[in-house]
């Protein structure tokens, strides 16, 4: 007997006694196996004709009926014991009990107590849990901890009042509980600027805004390409209760050159802030903006500097700044001039100005979600970083940090096998940076599949039968967030060809070119979230159901 597998789903339900909405679990209920199928199964398993099984069941029923309804407990071998029980109101005295018995009797129940072997099987049954995503509206606090725009993987802050145009590939929002469960299907509404200067508001569907537990990705470049917009003017993110959790407004796209955002030493800056540096240190400045190939003059604090590289959307240069206010001013041949206010503060010792993980900022003192066991590329920006040693990086147990390159201003590293716990950078007993890493499970869970005909969902342990003629098979995936999967998430063996998957409907199909059983593993974020087994009998024989785990 193979070990069973029970999936327990948690669904938001109103709890009356404390007036809250809570996630309450119950076993996923698959189809009810009809009596005829049980008789057929038992007939094959015991090599007894179906008619004998049915006669035996009738005889057992009659016997149980007779004994139980006359006050006995009845034990059915290998199955369990049936007995009666009574629910009745209590009485103050024997006299009252006898007098009001008929009135006080509420109901008679038939109890079933499974036998010890069945109980033992139950205790060894594997369980898995998942959360039903049909809308948990409880105390789910949704938070956006940072909002950035990305150009060529470098992160720029979304400075309010600045213009963000078609050169920006994406807007990324980092935070917690940014999945559909908390935000709904299309939580982002954005206003875009057309070529003629007019605006259009759009509620972004999943084609344009992907939702993850810790990240929202607004696919600006795709929107600009599809709709022919010139830039974005504002966006609003709402939670599932329609409350605004983040709102940003930007300026109209200017004529000529423009600065949208600036990063110093690979650290995004907010306009007007003071950037820490060491006197005499050379800092690298990256400017994101418009028509930057037209820039003829770059001045930092009134001192002219030369660009080291330039494109229409990004300009880089190095400067050894003086302490104090040093606005960055760009100008072109037509006399257009744009500026961005920054100050530089001379700082002794070690300063960590930012740490990014896979391009997303870790928030000092905040919480960051990681997938347990995965690796993350880390960039640490600041001053005096060459003084840091490996022992200064304290990671959660089981995690490790590999430093791949370092300078006084930038350390590139990888967190390997990230786990839950605190990431700290401590030097000479002074804590320079700390962030809590919280394991975030894969948001995709596959619980079963349906046959090509409409019907009850099958468990994953029920194999899909491929046609014995050409090996073709098809089905519909059942589970949570399966629309996030693509064909690339299915590890199909070489014996399965032409595999296809439609995320919108969960429909999959393919051809199994061999016989026996093939396993297709479904992998999301390096985690196997389920596997489908395809069975094909020898040509000419009947197709058989598999019973894989």
């Amino acid at each position, binding site marked *: 007997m193979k070990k069973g597998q029970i999936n327990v789903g948690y669904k938001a339900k109103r709890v009356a006694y404390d007036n809250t909405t809570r996630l309450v679990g119950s076993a996923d209920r698959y189809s009810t*196996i009809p009596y005829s199928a049980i008789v057929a199964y038992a007939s094959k398993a015991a090599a007894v004709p179906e008619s004998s099984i049915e006669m035996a069941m009738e005889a057992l029923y009659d016997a149980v009926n007779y004994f139980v309804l006359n006050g006995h407990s009845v034990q059915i071998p290998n199955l369990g014991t049936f007995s009666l029980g009574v629910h009745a109101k209590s009485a103050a005295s024997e006299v009252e009990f006898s007098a009001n018995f008929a009135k006080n009797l509420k109901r008679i129940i038939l109890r079933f107590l499974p036998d010890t072997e069945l109980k033992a099987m139950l205790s060894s049954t594997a369980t898995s849990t998942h959360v039903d995503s049909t809308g948990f509206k409880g105390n789910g606090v949704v938070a956006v901890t940072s909002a950035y725009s990305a150009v060529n993987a470098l992160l720029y802050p979304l400075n309010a009042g600045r213009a963000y145009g078609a050169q920006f590939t994406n807007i990324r929002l980092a935070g917690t509980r940014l999945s559909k469960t908390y935000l709904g299907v299309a939580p982002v509404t954005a206003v875009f600027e057309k070529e003629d200067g007019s605006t259009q508001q759009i509620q972004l569907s999943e084609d344009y805004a992907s939702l993850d537990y810790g990240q929202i990705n607004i696919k600006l470049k795709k929107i600009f390409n599809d709709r022919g917009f010139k830039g974005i003017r504002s966006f609003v993110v709402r939670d599932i209760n329609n409350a605004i959790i983040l709102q940003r407004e930007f300026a109209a796209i200017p004529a000529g050159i423009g600065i949208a955002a600036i990063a110093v030493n690979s650290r995004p800056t907010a306009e007007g802030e003071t950037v820490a540096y060491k006197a005499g240190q050379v800092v690298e400045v990256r400017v994101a903006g418009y028509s930057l190939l037209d820039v003829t003059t770059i001045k930092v604090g009134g001192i002219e500097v030369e660009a080291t590289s330039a494109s229409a959307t990004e300009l880089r240069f190095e400067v050894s700044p003086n302490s104090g206010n040093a606005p960055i001013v760009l100008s072109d041949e037509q006399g257009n001039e744009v500026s961005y206010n920054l100050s530089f503060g001379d700082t002794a010792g070690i300063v960590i100005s930012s740490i990014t993980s896979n391009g997303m900022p870790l928030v000092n003192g905040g919480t960051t979600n990681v997938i347990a066991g995965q690796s993350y590329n880390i960039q640490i920006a600041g001053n005096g970083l060459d003084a840091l040693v490996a022992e200064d990086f304290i990671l959660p147990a089981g995690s490790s940090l590999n430093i791949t390159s370092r300078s006084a201003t930038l350390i590139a590293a990888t967190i390997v096998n990230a786990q839950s716990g605190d990431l700290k950078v401590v030097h000479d007993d002074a804590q320079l940076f700390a962030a809590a890493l919280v394991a975030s499970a894969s948001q995709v869970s596959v619980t079963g599949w349906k046959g090509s005909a409409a019907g009850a969902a099958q468990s994953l342990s029920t194999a899909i039968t491929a046609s014995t003629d050409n090996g073709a098979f098809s089905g519909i995936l059942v589970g949570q967030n399966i629309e996030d999967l693509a064909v690339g998430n299915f590890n199909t063996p070489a014996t399965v060809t032409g595999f296809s998957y439609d995320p919108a409907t969960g429909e999959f199909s393919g051809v199994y070119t061999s016989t026996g059983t093939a396993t297709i593993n479904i992998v999301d974020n390096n985690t196997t979230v389920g596997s489908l087994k395809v069975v094909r009998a020898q040509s000419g024989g009947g197709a058989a159901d598999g019973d894989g785990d």
Partner: protein
Amino acid sequence: MGQIKVRGKMQRVAVIDDNRVLARNVRYSTVKGNELISYASQSAHIAESNLRAATLAIREAISYFVLNGHHVDLGKFGIFGIRTKTKSALDVEQVDSKMLRRMSIGFTPSKELKEAISTLKIEAVVE
């Protein structure tokens, strides 16, 4: 038609801190598996071996289907299925397998059995 006796017995009820007469059905002996098989075999003229094979096979069927999340219809007996008791959670992050407190095999009697129970003759006795 069956008949059962319900006995009233004075007992301490903690929640109301008082003595009350509570109802309990009088339970006679437990009919053991072997006795049931013998009785069913004689009354329905079926070989005991067939009855034993049938009960074993039915158990196999129940354990295979029920322990994989299905409910099983056992005809005149009723429907067997998994029941769970879990702790509730206020947010998604708290949900894990440790919240599963207990699993049991639940049983819902068939319509025939319920009707048979509803026609029971009940006699009240006081100790």
